[in-house]
């Protein structure tokens, strides 16, 4: 097991260096000069240009620039936003809880509905329930989520007026946010109605972001369950006279969960990509909206830093999933 962990960690290092190379090259691949971009349309004097070039290190050889960048990154220095003049690192981590809260809720939504749907479909293979659930799952899987969001807004915010259209909480509430998680902070503030407002703001984004993972989990659970239900030990369990609920719920589902857990872990990238769209539509102040806004504002240090942090996040989660997988499934780590 130790060898497996070490080998897996060793592949992490070159990938990490590669990812830093990509984000390093990003600013240099842009058309035009980054300092001119920063100066904006007013232009810039030659002395000031040289001063800034020296400050950012653009006048030195490219490998020295990369080395400085890499050592900076390892110390948490990702540069400073052109627009807000705040360190990119600080911006990322002040917005990250919003994305995390939304992603966790979306994942809970997806698992809570997807797992039972997959089990029910597998147990009723070929029957009406199976076909209805799997058709729905395929529609969900094919859904352009930005359009899905607009439809939900039309119905629930427009016609029924049940949910707000944007933001994380009603404007009338104001309280400190020590954790950054609106659900927790609003409860802790003790203000009447604050928690309810936070929940109402979360509902639509959660459904939108959770739709594709929900469909994927339902489909994956069904096929994993079908595979397991054909095994000998299930037949033995049936022969012993166990109740179907016990067989399906305990014997089969537990083994079917292994591939499902992997799928859940690996959908972090999907969630982050979905967060870009969901957050933009619902004006949710998280990482996705921040990246899109920065691209439009040409706030390149933010795009560069955000790109790197998102990639590292995906890599770390994949690493953890791989290790957990090795832990659950001994067949993997022997190789």
């Amino acid at each position, binding site marked *: 097991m130790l060898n497996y962990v070490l080998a897996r960690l060793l*592949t992490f290092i*070159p*990938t990490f260096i*590669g*990812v830093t190379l*990509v984000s390093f090259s*990003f600013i240099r*691949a*842009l*058309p035009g000069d980054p300092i001119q971009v920063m100066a904006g349309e007013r232009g810039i004097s030659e002395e000031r240009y040289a001063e800034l070039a020296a400050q950012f290190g653009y006048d030195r050889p490219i490998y020295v620039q990369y080395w400085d960048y890499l050592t900076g990154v390892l110390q948490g220095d990702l540069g400073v936003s052109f627009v807000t003049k705040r360190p990119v690192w600080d911006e990322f981590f002040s917005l990250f809880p919003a994305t995390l809260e939304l992603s966790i809720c979306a994942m809970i939504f997806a698992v809570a509905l997807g797992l039972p749907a997959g089990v029910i479909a597998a147990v009723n293979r070929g029957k009406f329930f199976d076909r209805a659930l799997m*058709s729905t799952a*395929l*529609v969900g*899987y*094919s*859904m*352009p989520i*930005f*359009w*899905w969001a*607009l*439809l939900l*807004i*039309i119905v629930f915010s*427009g016609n029924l007026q049940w949910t707000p259209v944007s933001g994380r909480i009603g404007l009338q509430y104001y309280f400190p946010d020590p954790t950054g998680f609106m659900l927790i902070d609003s409860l802790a503030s003790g203000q009447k109605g604050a928690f309810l407002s936070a929940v109402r703001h979360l509902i639509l984004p959660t459904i939108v972001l959770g739709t594709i993972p929900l469909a994927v989990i339902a489909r994956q659970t069904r096929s994993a369950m079908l595979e397991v239900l054909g095994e000998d030990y299930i037949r033995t369990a049936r022969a012993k006279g166990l109740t179907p609920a016990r067989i399906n719920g305990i014997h089969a589902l537990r083994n079917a969960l292994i591939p499902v857990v992997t799928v859940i872990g690996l959908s972090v*990238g*999907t969630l*982050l*990509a979905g967060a*870009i*769209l969901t957050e*933009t539509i619902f004006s949710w102040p998280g990482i996705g909206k921040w*990246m*899109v806004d920065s*691209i*439009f504002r040409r706030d390149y240090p933010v*795009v560069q830093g955000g*790109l790197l942090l*998102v*990639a*590292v996040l*995906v*890599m770390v989660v*994949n690493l953890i999933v791989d290790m957990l997988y090795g832990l659950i499934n001994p067949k993997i780590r022997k190789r």
Partner: protein
Amino acid sequence: MADTTQITTAPSRPSALREFWYYFRENRGAVIGLYVFSALVLIAVFAGLIAPHDPTAQNRAATLLPPVWQEGGSWSYILGTDPLGRDLLSRLLYGSQLTFLVGIMVVVLASAGGIIIGLISGFAPKWVDTIIMRIMDIILSFPALLLALVLVAILGPSLINAMIAIAIAYQPHFVRLTRAAVLAERSKDYVISARVAGAGLPRLMFITVLPNCVAPIIVQAALSFSNAILDVAALGFLGMGAQPPTPEWGTMLAESREFILRAWWVVTFPGLAILITVLAINLMGDGLRDALDPKLKRS
């Protein structure tokens, strides 16, 4: 070549295509998907003939006209008009051309590059293979849509750049699949005998091994086709894909976003068009997987 075919005396095996069709037909959803897909292709091809109006022609007298079945609708604008008085139906019909163009281009670019790199990776010495796979890991660390957004920021927003960016983001999947299939095939007897018979490396790669690796690649291609349509529409929606007045479905959604509470049709139809197209392709993809995956075949 003619001689070898005459010598064959074994009972004729059903042709690969017929066998494929036999299994594909068993999946009813896949057949429905195929019909819908074919209909959409016909619509795209003949969009110029079917469309009642020019997709970019503006009629200031008829802005935000509702569809024909609603009060105030008219037969000359069956699905209504957008905020600039353009015919929604015509824009959707012309948009289907772009959608298929996008899907085909992305799949061709991503699969061609991915197959070649994957073949090289599978046949090359270990160190080349390791370098290629690490590069693919790096690309896979970025969520596809984010990578595409950033690439488009570098290249400039346009439909072509969106397609290139998404093809780059999808390429690693093809590389990994091809490499895995090549590694499984490389040590089999028929490959060794071809090598002993003096087949050169290009021949071994493209003629001997590749045809035996295509099944998973085709399934991946179908999946990439539908994902490409979704991602390009998403880029268009974010303003980083096709630029107005191009009748691209995602861009159409973005243009009419502010009218969602006043005119449901400007938002509903473009999204529905995306959903139906992607759904049809995914239905076919499921059928392809069932028909091509030997593990699932009941012989």
